[in-house]
């Protein structure tokens, strides 16, 4: 009797172990979803496309992982499953994830001063790595570019005065606030992190570090990360991954930094990613900043930014509609690449329709 019970217990254990799917060289396919909810999602994400006027919602790729299996993917325009698509500012969260591996190696602490790793920041001696990860450097940075191209720090950094050495260009900015006090979204902050990583892991390892630390352990075979002339990764903007590979990063985050039986990111690192920044004020941005990831949390007295998605949703977001959504409670990872040139695309709408089509319908 006792023996029988323990046998059943062992069987149950092995069942749960087997129920956890991980991608190998490819994602394994999950149960196919069809029906009117999926139709509604496709109508929203894939309206007739015009590559001349570039108007409207222009989804390049939409891919859904549930319980570690690929249950939906569709591509449009020139993008295919093999296209390493520009992620724009999703790169920022990727850099945070690369840093998380270095953090797991014990190479730095969140409260370390950045100047320790990047001497040009001795002009701002109190600035910490945590401040940069919160986009709270206090540097007087102008992220806006559509409306103020003359004074846009981003345009100058990527294309004119700053492109040879983006971190130095950022470090030369003055301050408008003390570090760690106020949120101001800044591509410069991310590139300072990228420059700091050079000393954190050593110049020797740096050039391959995103691949050896993160991409290869996850089975990502086709990643591009452009650098400036100083060899610093343009962590603000220029990482390229296929939709299938970006979803691997999503699954890593959905499972608290664990990949298979390896805890690639320490749990306290992921907890930091998921913790809203206390200095954030209502409506400063489209979502709530955590540790270089975006959160769907009520904060600063305002309801959560995407009311139709669960509060545990986190996201990496980029220019022109790039998005990686992670919904751990639903075991969902959604990659959406786009080329939206207007503001029509809405995260909440996509999430609402995707949850209707894919959430909680079948459990393995």
């Amino acid at each position, binding site marked *: 009797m006792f023996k029988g019970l323990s046998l059943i217990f062992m069987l149950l254990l092995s069942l749960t172990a087997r129920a956890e799917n991980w991608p190998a060289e490819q994602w394994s396919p999950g149960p196919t979803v069809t029906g009117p909810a999926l139709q509604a999602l496709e109508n929203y994400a894939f309206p007739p496309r015009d590559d001349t006027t570039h108007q409207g919602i222009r989804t390049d790729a939409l891919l859904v992982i549930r319980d570690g299996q690929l249950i939906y993917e569709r591509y449009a325009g020139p993008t295919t499953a093999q296209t*390493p698509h*520009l992620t724009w500012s999703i790169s920022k969260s990727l850099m945070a994830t690369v840093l998380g591996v270095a953090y797991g190696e014990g190479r730095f602490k969140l409260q370390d001063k950045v100047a320790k790793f990047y001497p040009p920041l001795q002009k701002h001696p109190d600035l910490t790595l945590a401040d940069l990860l919160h986009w709270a450097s206090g540097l007087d940075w102008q992220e806006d570019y559509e409306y103020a191209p*003359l004074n846009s720090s981003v345009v100058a950094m990527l*294309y004119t*005065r700053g492109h040879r050495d983006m971190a130095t260009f950022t470090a030369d900015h003055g301050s408008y606030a003390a570090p760690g006090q106020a949120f101001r979204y800044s591509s410069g902050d991310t590139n300072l992190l990228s420059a700091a990583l050079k000393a954190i892991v050593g110049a020797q390892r740096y050039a391959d570090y995103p*691949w050896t630390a993160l991409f290869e352990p996850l089975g990502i075979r086709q990643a*591009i990360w*452009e650098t400036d002339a100083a060899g610093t990764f343009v962590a603000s903007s220029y990482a*390229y991954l296929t939709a299938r590979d970006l979803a691997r990063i999503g699954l890593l985050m959905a499972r608290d930094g664990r990949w298979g039986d390896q805890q690639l990111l320490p749990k306290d690192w992921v907890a930091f990613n998921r913790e809203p920044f206390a200095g954030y004020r209502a409506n400063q941005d489209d979502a709530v900043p955590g540790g270089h990831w975006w959160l769907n949390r009520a904060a600063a007295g305002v309801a959560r930014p995407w009311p139709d998605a669960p509060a545990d949703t986190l996201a990496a977001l980029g220019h022109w509609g790039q998005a990686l959504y992670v919904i751990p409670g639903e075991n969902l990872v959604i990659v959406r690449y786009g*080329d939206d040139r207007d503001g029509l695309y809405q995260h909440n709408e996509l999430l609402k329709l995707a949850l209707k089509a894919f959430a909680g319908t079948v459990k393995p």
Partner: protein
Amino acid sequence: MSGLMRRRPISSLLLILLLALLGWVWQERVALWAFPDIISAYTAKEYCSCRYVMNNDAGYCRGYVKQWLPLSGFTDDAVSKRITVSGMGRSNMAVWIGEHQGCRLNP
């Protein structure tokens, strides 16, 4: 000065505006000097990555980087994967570097 203002109010106002404009130009001289580079540098870099990193076809990539400002020159050397673009009196070049590093503005 106040006598001048009373006798020639229009000219005085224009003079003040001119001085303010010159002051602004001086203050913004670095940004203003860099400004004309934006269109050619943006086009060269983003076309290079569209074409040789994302591997999209040339026609799509020309549409992808199209802005409302006209270009005066565009060459895509498919052998060296080198893109040179001119516009607003400036010229910029981007080049594909490698499998991991993609494209970069040069110099």
